[in-house]
């Protein structure tokens, strides 16, 4: 039985973590002589109180949804994919190759092509570590980290040699065909008569990200493959007993995971930069880990967590713009949020569980499960745990 009710598990724990991170951030801001309340209001004003702010917040959130889903899907198969960074970078390569050489007739077809290419490249980049884990027992954390470096090296080479137009000095591809430009929020608003400031913010990829959230939910909880992935993630021994093939599931789950990371590239490479540059991923692959942790590996949770991190990113940029808080400190604040919501989850959870236990004891209402009719038996708890002690 669960000690805490579900709402506490899902909302209270992250909320308290967030508040703790905010308090600590406030202390840091105070320590360098700035006003934390001003800082917060600048962050909010710059990220969610204007159309422009929303544009950027959602743009960042789109990235984090993809990389968060990437980590979440792997988590369900009990695989820790920290190679989202590299898989997204390869996704970018896929997008560039799809858009540089083929004259697609319309941006929507180009988007479809880029989506397929991005997913395929990300998936293939995840497939190698997956195979090494499943068939050779090389730990996926190690291999995916290594593959991040290899991805970065590969793109570095390609961009400064093969893909760079002759005569250009910076390591990047040529601009994609302007016909492939994706519709942006600002663009849509301009057409509707609103005056929009700039065009490089949230684009239609955000809708693709929402569709991806739904697709991941559907996959995990409505399909046989998702069932097998979750079963394998819960217990490999049981999966074998049931005839679920570990090698196959590991590879499929990692390909889906890598594919999702790769999709991020349509937002950055196709949507924003409109060409492939070095380091197009900008660390979003790693933020995805925090997003998945905070979102408890559920697509809806990932969506909310990605919005939060989008807000932190955009708010942080505003902070650097309007205050004396240095850019580095903003990274510190973001890191604090990641630390509290992701890594220090149990620090908040344990006291909270104790609190719930104490609240419940005097009245002793039934746990989340209805009590068995007839004799109530405290079976699965004490005895089993003692033997392990």
């Amino acid at each position: 039985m669960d000690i805490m009710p579900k709402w506490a598990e899902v909302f209270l724990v992250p909320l308290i973590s967030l508040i703790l991170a905010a308090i600590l951030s406030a202390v840091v801001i105070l320590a360098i002589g700035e006003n934390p309340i001003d800082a917060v209001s600048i962050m909010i004003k710059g990220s969610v109180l204007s159309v422009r702010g929303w544009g950027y917040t959602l743009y960042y959130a789109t990235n984090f949804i993809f990389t968060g889903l990437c980590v979440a899907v792997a988590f369900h198969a009990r695989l820790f994919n920290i190679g989202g960074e590299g898989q997204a970078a390869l996704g970018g390569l896929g997008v560039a190759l799809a858009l540089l050489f083929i004259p697609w007739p319309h941006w929507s077809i180009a988007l479809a092509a880029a989506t397929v290419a991005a997913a395929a490249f990300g998936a293939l980049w995840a497939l190698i570590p997956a195979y090494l884990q499943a068939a050779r027992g090389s730990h996926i954390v190690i291999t995916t980290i290594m593959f991040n470096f290899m991805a970065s090296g590969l793109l570095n080479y390609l961009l400064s040699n093969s893909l760079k137009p002759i005569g250009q000095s910076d390591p990047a591809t040529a601009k994609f065909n302007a016909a492939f430009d994706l519709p942006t929020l600002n663009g849509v608003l301009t057409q509707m008569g609103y005056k929009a400031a700039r065009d490089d913010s949230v684009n239609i990829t955000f809708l693709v990200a929402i569709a991806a959230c739904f697709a991941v939910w559907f996959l995990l909880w409505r399909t046989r493959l998702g069932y097998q992935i979750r079963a394998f993630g819960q217990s490999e021994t049981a999966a074998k007993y049931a005839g679920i093939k570990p090698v196959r599931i590991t590879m499929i789950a990692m390909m889906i995971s890598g594919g999702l990371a790769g999709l991020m590239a349509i937002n950055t490479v196709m949507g924003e930069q409109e060409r492939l540059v070095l380091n197009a991923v900008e660390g979003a692959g790693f933020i995805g880990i925090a997003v998945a942790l905070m979102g408890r590996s559920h697509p809806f949770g990932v969506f909310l967590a990605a919005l939060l991190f989008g807000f932190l990113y955009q708010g942080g940029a505003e902070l650097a713009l309007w205050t004396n808080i240095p850019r580095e400190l903003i990274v510190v604040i973001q890191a604090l949020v990641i630390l509290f919501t992701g890594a220090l989850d149990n620090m908040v959870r344990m006291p909270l569980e104790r609190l719930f236990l104490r609240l419940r004891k005097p009245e002793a209402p039934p746990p989340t499960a209805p009590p068995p009719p007839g004799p109530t038996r405290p079976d699965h708890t004490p005895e089993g745990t003692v033997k392990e002690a």
Partner: protein
Amino acid sequence: MPDTQPPAIELRGISKAFGPVQANKDINLSVKRGAIHGIIGENGAGKSTLMSILYGFYKADKGEILISGQITHIPDSQAAIAAGIGMVFQHFKLVQNFTVLENVVLGAEDGALLGPSLSKARKELTALAAEYGLDVDPDALIQDIGVGMQQRVEILKALYRQADILILDEPTGVLTPAEADQLFRILGRLKEEGKTIVLITHKLREIMEITDTVSVMRRGEMTATVETATTSPEALAELMVGRKVLLRVEKKPAKVGALVLEVRDLKVTDDKGVQKLRGISFDIRAGEILGLAGVAGNGQSELLEVLGGYQKAKGTIRMNGEEIDLTGRHSDAQSRRARGIAHVPEDRHREGLILEFQAWENMAFGYHNDPKYQKNALMMDNDAIRADTAEKMARFDVRPPNPLLAAKSFSGGNQQKIVLAREIERNPDLLLIGQPTRGVDIGAIEFIHQQIMRLRDEGKAILLVSVELEEIMSLSDRIAVMFDGQIMGERLPEKTDEKELGLLMAGMAGEAA
């Protein structure tokens, strides 16, 4: 009888709750010095919790502990050891690649240098061995000695720490009958020397055999404490369960039919190159139960894994006359199920269930490819699975009959019923069933045994693997005994006894049956 000496252990009003679960309710217990006291009860009755409180693992919410008449506060196991309490756990806590001597000293070293502690321990170990008949080689590595020996090391560890009171938690679970008898002799010696022994078990026979007094626990309460001589197994079983129980299954004569399973010269070698099965052959016919007896770890698990389809093997297996693929593409659990083999695995937590999954998700486990469970090419039909689960839960009397409850929230017996319902309701030709009643309460044992019998009487072939000899004896139509990856012999239950089976289990060869 009047006694001037204070009891070795006295518990007064011990209560302990885990959240809403009251594991111990106002427990009073008094154990006389120099007695063997049994504590018996079903899984989850609170025996282990109570002993954990006594050993300092848990803190009681209420109540007090008196050791030799003194109120004693036991916040941790160090305090328990200081109070003269020693505990032998069901799962031994020994370092496999340390010697016996090193294990005995571990945690009781006198200083930073090991030398003096070890030589002191060596002397003391020799003395203890002589005094209690606890012979062990102090320089043997734990990984090289048998379970019976390992258990002695655990007892020696406790005695080395000057334990006066020895608590043994299910000590015979891993022993052959002969080893168990040896253990009981040692316990007898310890008792003669004035040690107090608390024996936790769910086996009525052991209680009757060696205890002086026995306490029965049910649902966190101490329901009775009686002199063993004045009670009977039936009376104790009734006290444990709270109603009359049938201790033996009703067994009609077997109507044996066609050959279902043929196993010839089956060999399994594990990753480390150790041979786990060394050429096993046997047959099972329709309508009969072949019981596979043996101490855990002698190849039974590997045999079930091979038949279940998730362990590669050499040799031949024929199912209904057709040869089964043992190494190739069709050597997986799905193909076995398609052949009409159902499998209730030995360890339902490790294999049979996904504890975090809800009951309905578990009901589809292993049968997730069943067309009946699919809505279309893409989706599983969750509603159909839930309906099917509700029906099966009702038929197998799973409580609570709620398909939406996580598997971990059911009691051991009800978890086992979920697995049984899933496998038996598939109407298999062959049922593999490992440790059907491990960690299952007596009431559920009765039900599970009846279900196995029903399946046999319907003309199915059943391979029953169990470490409980009583279970093997009462259910099987034929008994095969495994030792060290081989079948030592086959016996008919009515023409053999526990002693003979015990010898076979210990590897004393009988003539092949």
